[in-house]
């Protein structure tokens, strides 16, 4: 089936070359970082994780959200989603590739990465995160590929694939839960030390991921003869709406606990993010953008007329993705490190090389995604013809 990836329009090739160029720039910046050390980033002694780990967190969520099409399809026998499960699964594969790359570029000593396997350490959540992410990627590659191959031949996929599909459903929840545990079990980082972290992660994943999937479905419909379907997009929009309601609700729960208890440690990170602390407030405009976008997207998603209209739905999905990205890919990490253990504030802002590396990794993810989608869509077109 791979050969379908090399037969495409000039638009397809132009897009791939554009992504390759971004990947090249990212790689160049990465080499610079590799030789100079992580001092070329904006991270510091006090804010020792930044954009990279934020992206890891965000895209684990996108990957996990593949389950939002798989679960209704296979557990509730919601046939309509059968058309697009492959899009969800391949989105998961591309996302996990980005996640693994983001971990890699964040390492101070990437050549030693095998130490994680040579000295397996079950008490480290990072060890488990690595396992669940890799297994989830494998599951999705195997399932997606075999189901697609069966579809092309016009036969039913084999029974053992079904077993893998059932495994992949709880597994999707596990990857984001384990990722939340990276943060939620650390003493002394108040913004992270909250039992609701995993639930927040899952809810924000289950709105952001399907929102991205909706956008991708709309693009697929535009650039190919395969139509993911009106009903499918409508159902996805409903899922996005519910998940976003939960996401905002969970965040409000955090606000209540912090500001009703008035415990300084619980309040300070939130004050820093939304108001500024000790004269440092470089995230304030971002966080308010996220808040406003979150509310706006909720309105557009809850009002039936705007949810059903694909134009307003597109707007809702875009601003929802921006809102959740700021919250999870940016604010979450910096909020955890602010204030520092000494109750001071050290500002963080990614440097240009850091941003270009990040863009390079995104481009890699979308490169893989484009190729996988190209294959899937070509098969779908053939079957339909």
């Amino acid at each position: 089936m791979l050969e379908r990836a090399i037969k495409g329009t000039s638009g397809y090739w132009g897009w791939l070359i554009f992504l390759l160029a971004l990947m090249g720039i990212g790689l160049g910046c990465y080499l610079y970082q590799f030789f100079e050390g992580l001092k070329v980033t904006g991270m510091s002694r006090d804010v020792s994780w930044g954009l990279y780990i934020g992206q890891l967190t965000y895209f684990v969520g996108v990957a996990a959200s593949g389950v939002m099409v798989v679960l209704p399809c296979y557990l509730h026998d919601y046939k309509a989603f059968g058309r697009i499960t492959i899009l969800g699964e391949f989105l998961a594969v591309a996302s996990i590739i980005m996640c693994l790359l983001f971990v890699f570029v964040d390492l101070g000593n990437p050549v030693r990465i095998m130490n994680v396997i040579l000295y397996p350490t079950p008490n480290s959540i990072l060890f488990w995160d690595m396992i669940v992410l890799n297994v989830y990627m494998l599951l999705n590659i195997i399932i997606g590929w075999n189901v697609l191959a069966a579809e092309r031949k016009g036969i039913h996929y084999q029974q053992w694939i079904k077993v893998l599909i059932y495994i992949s459903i709880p597994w999707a929840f596990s990857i984001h839960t384990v990722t939340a545990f990276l943060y939620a079990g650390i003493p002394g980082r108040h913004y992270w030390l909250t039992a609701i972290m995993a639930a927040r992660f899952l809810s924000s994943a289950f709105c952001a991921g399907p929102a991205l999937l909706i956008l991708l479905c709309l693009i697929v419909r535009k650039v190919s003869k395969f139509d993911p379907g009106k009903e499918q997009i409508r159902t996805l929009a409903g899922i996005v709406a519910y998940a976003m309601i939960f996401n905002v609700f969970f965040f409000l729960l955090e606000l209540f606990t912090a500001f009703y208890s008035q415990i300084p440690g619980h309040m300070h990170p939130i004050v820093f993010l939304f108001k500024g602390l000790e004269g440092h407030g470089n995230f304030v405009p971002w966080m308010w953008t996220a808040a406003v976008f979150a509310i706006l997207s909720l309105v557009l998603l809850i009002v039936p007329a705007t949810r059903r209209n694909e134009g307003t739905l597109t707007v809702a999905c875009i601003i929802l993705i921006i809102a959740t990205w700021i919250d999870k890919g940016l604010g979450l990490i910096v909020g955890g490190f602010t204030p520092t253990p000494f109750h001071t504030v050290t500002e963080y802002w990614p440097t240009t090389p850091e941003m270009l590396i990040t863009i390079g990794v995104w481009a890699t993810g979308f490169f893989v995604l484009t190729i996988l989608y190209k294959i899937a869509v070509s098969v779908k077109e053939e079957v339909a013809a």
Partner: protein
Amino acid sequence: MGVDRREFLKIAGYAALFGLGGKAAIDILSPGELEASMQGIPLTQGKRWSMVIDMRKCLKQQEAGKDGCKECMIACHLEHNVPDWGNPKHAIKWIWQDKYEHVFPEHPNQFIDEGVRHKPFILMCNHCVNPPCVRVCPTQATFKRESDGIVAMDMHRCIGCRFCMAACPYGSRSFNWGNPRKAPKELNPDYPTNRAYPERSKGVVEKCNFCVELVAKGELPACVQACDKIKVHALNFGDLDDPKSNVRKLLREHYTIRRKPALGTEPNLFYII
């Protein structure tokens, strides 16, 4: 240790001249010092190394000099070739000073006495009994030594994920943001030729190691030696497991506090205020 060996011999010598026993002489010259300092030796046999920092003595010394006192920090950073980047964001700190409010942020007190307000306290890794840094490390590059409780660091295994830095609630860990060999050389003239201490590469985490390499030879940590050398004796290193040790005696006799005790990490560093 309160009195170093050479000083002990000197005092004993004077005492002998006056027809006194060595120990009795010291008891007269500085009561209690000898017991407090000489217990816990031999050094290689401690089961739970700890440090009691007498901030009264330390602050007194810091106020004596016009630039404060930096002896322990200089000694440590020389001993371990700690790179200096001249950029606070990339600073590598093994032992350092920060003001009281930053060291004990969980004890806010608007009306605290002038003796500690904004005063520079000594900080280093607490060698916690229950260290979160060790719990999170995916490679066991940082580990707690069963035998003596030191939280050690293998800079040759560390992958630089910095999970431990997020996990340490005390800011005790530093990362080599650049190549430590390129760091300014003033503070560490031996670097990188000093083979007594392993070189590290860029991209690894490091922190205070309670001078495992010196303790193994039966010597006191470099900071303690430096403090003893100027006869301040603010840093007291000893075995918490031994009821007769210098540190246990100090803890019995003084009110001490630890940093962020509510987190359950059980720091092995104690402060006499």
